């Protein structure tokens, strides 16, 4: 497991090379986050190879691919959990490499992540979970002496309603059902108000109804946030894909484009859809 832990010391991130910037701007008119030439290997196994991906501001991107394609590794690199061998990740407005920053700093700079298994703080109440996630000064002093403003309280109330948990805000999160936990985690992401929302298999283990509500929510989030949904459930992807779909295979991008274009790509059919 140690190989996955990013070693310190962390830096504020080097400025991005202007050449890279140009390359990114050529690819997209309205880019927000760029992942450029990222390679990751674990003990010789290449999890990602020279992967380049540009996310547009406000888009809903679906990343699909069979198991082992490198979807989760990609998320790990973006959120700072895994240090890649090469490559860089940066926000276009910052032009500063994220790769060597600590996880908490990356989170504060605007990347939120929802894990595959619902990860909430189970001994905290639903409200406490949201309080913790809420975008605010997350330093020591403010945490010890700061009080929540009325505005922040109202925001939490709003989120509680969005995720349908307004009746159990004082309930310990550990006692929630699986689907409710997934929703709480999405709520925590909303509270964090990130520029980019990474969502790893959001509907795993959800009932049909919950899946529909989740799809609806994710679609409504796009526009205000850039949403990246990693999924291997093709039906779900069909139900939410409205912008670009990226197909990963063996650590590389196999195809990228609209859902229809990707679906009719013979290579994609061969490795993925044809199964």
């Amino acid at each position, binding site marked *: 497991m140690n190989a996955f832990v990013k070693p310190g010391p962390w830096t504020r991130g080097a400025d991005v090379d202007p050449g890279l910037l140009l390359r990114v701007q050529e690819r997209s008119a309205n880019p927000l986050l760029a992942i450029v030439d990222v390679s990751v290997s674990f003990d010789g196994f290449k999890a990602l190879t020279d992967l380049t991906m540009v996310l547009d501001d406000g888009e809903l991107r679906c990343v699909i691919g069979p198991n082992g394609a490198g979807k989760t590794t990609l998320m790990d690199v973006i959120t700072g959990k895994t240090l890649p061998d090469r490559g860089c990740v940066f926000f276009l407005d910052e032009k500063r490499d994220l790769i060597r920053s600590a996880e*908490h700093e990356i989170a504060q700079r605007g990347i939120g992540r929802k894990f595959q298994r619902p990860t909430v*703080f189970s001994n905290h109440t639903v409200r406490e979970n949201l309080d913790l996630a809420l975008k605010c000064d*997350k330093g020591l002093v403010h945490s010890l002496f700061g009080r929540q403003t009325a505005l922040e309280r109202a925001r939490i109330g709003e989120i509680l309603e969005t995720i349908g948990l307004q009746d159990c805000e004082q309930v310990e999160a550990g006692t929630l059902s699986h689907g409710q936990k997934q929703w709480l985690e999405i709520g925590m992401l909303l509270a*964090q108000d990130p520029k980019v929302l990474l969502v790893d298999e959001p509907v795993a283990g959800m009932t049909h109804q919950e899946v529909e509500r989740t799809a609806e929510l994710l679609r409504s989030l796009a526009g205000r946030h850039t949403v990246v949904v990693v999924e291997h459930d093709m039906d779900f992807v069909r139900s939410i894909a409205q912008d670009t779909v990226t197909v990963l295979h063996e650590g590389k991008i196999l195809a990228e484009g609209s859902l229809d274009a990707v679906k009719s790509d013979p290579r994609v059919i061969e490795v993925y859809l044809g199964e």
Partner: protein
Amino acid sequence: MGNLRRLHSPKGWLLLAGAATVFLGLVPLLNAVLPASSPLHASSYFLLLLGKFACYAMVALAVDLVWGYTGILSLGHGVFFALGGYAIGMNLMLEIGDRGVYRSALPDFMVFLDWKELPWFWHGFDSFGFALAMAIVVPGVLAWVFGYLAFRSRIRGVYFSIITQALSYALMLLFFRNETGLGGNNGLTDFKAIYGYPLQAESTKLALYVLSFAALFATYLACRFVVKSKLGAVLRAVRDVEGKARFTGYDTLKFKLFAWVMSAAICGLAGALYVPQVGIINPSELQPANSIEMVIWVAVGGRGTLGGAALGAFIINGAKSWFTVWAPEVWLFFLGGLFVAVTLFLPNGLVSIGERLRLRVKGKAP
């Protein structure tokens, strides 16, 4: 005041006020006002016992803060306690002046070792204020350095516990050496006075007792303030899922260090109050077993409850005092048995008894 109101329910405040009345009001009164012949007289021995327990309870609060709330199991808190004790002990040694056996301005053990002057690190300790500050600062700084290195390398769980245990053992060996300049295996003892007040005087003993309990209550409120704040919620988040806390935007290293250093500083203060009362500090305080016992107080009392941890310190040390008088050979068996029984039947500690009984009455017991 709004913040204070959040710390406790009215019932909780009442309970706390009750405890403060008994220990800070009633007991001192029974000691100072009633004649020694009265059956209700609180003897200075009784005061000493309670005063010691109050220091232990402070340690228990400190352990609970890092273990119960932050998930860091330390098997080396005896180190911070002993360092605080040594710091104040150095002041008490210098306070003896030339009233020692050898009639020298140097502490007796230095004369015995044929040293001609104070080692460099003894300078400043003739000031009581400086020594008291060092009793808190030295454990705090050691904890910061040790914690920074360990937490930054993401050493967690049992590995961290083992290192703290090793730290305790290493320091014990260091303090056993005469060359270290802290009295070797005899430690620091034969104190005469503290801040000019003779330690044998009844009034000094009473004052130390009162100070210990005042410090205990202050520590309790400070810890309570921390764990009830959002910072406390972050600490619990770090304990439960540290990775998630990081991805939520918290620099968990800083939060762990805060709890860890605060905990060490509390232990240092407790040690500083403890040593003048018992009259000695020596390397046996650094025995790894002592640190483990501190953890048992918390486990038995109830971890993650503060009040339970403090209660555990009182109960176990009370039992220890009783056993060492009446049946010393049984003590360790009793302690082990109690620990096993609590772990098996009351995983949330003795403070959860009430809750368990209530559930049982309602027929909801597991």
